[in-house]
């Protein structure tokens, strides 16, 4: 995936375990996605 590509609307999980689509967070002009290595 390179700049200019459209990111798939993949499913992720909320802390309560319910599924949510990435697009539900795309409500601002931009979205910063931060992928953590781990929670420690």
């Amino acid at each position: 995936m390179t700049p200019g590509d459209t990111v798939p609307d993949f499913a992720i999980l909320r802390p309560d375990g319910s599924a949510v689509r990435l697009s539900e967070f795309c409500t601002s002009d931009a979205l910063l996605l931060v992928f953590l290595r781990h929670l420690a």
Partner: protein
Amino acid sequence: MAAARDTFAARGCSVLVVSQAKPELVAHYVARTRLPVPVVSDPARAAYAAFGLERTNWFAFFRPRVLWGYFRGMFKGYRVRKPNRGEDVLQLGGDFVLSRERKLLFAYRSADPTDRPTVAELLTALPSAPPIGGERAPDGPPRARR
């Protein structure tokens, strides 16, 4: 973290944190740290793979740059903890900026465990956001001082 979130919000950018931990661990983490941004879980690491985030190897932790990164983090109060069960400690992270239409605007894939972009680098990736305060637009003239 809240200050950084506000800086991004002022430029029309929201923040979403993605973890490879299971949702129940994320819930515990959110309650403990009170992160001011939403955190979601991707335990299958499908999104990690889709964004091209790779696994590193154990030797990477002994590179001078990485050791120095951990040392600096600990100096700032970061505590090295044992990873949660089910988390892959070799998984690398990354930072991406998407438009409202989910078009990828900026991609930064960590090259090693301590490699992350700076806030300033991320801010420059935001689309057509006006400069804040006395800042100068990246391609514009210096702002006049009052």
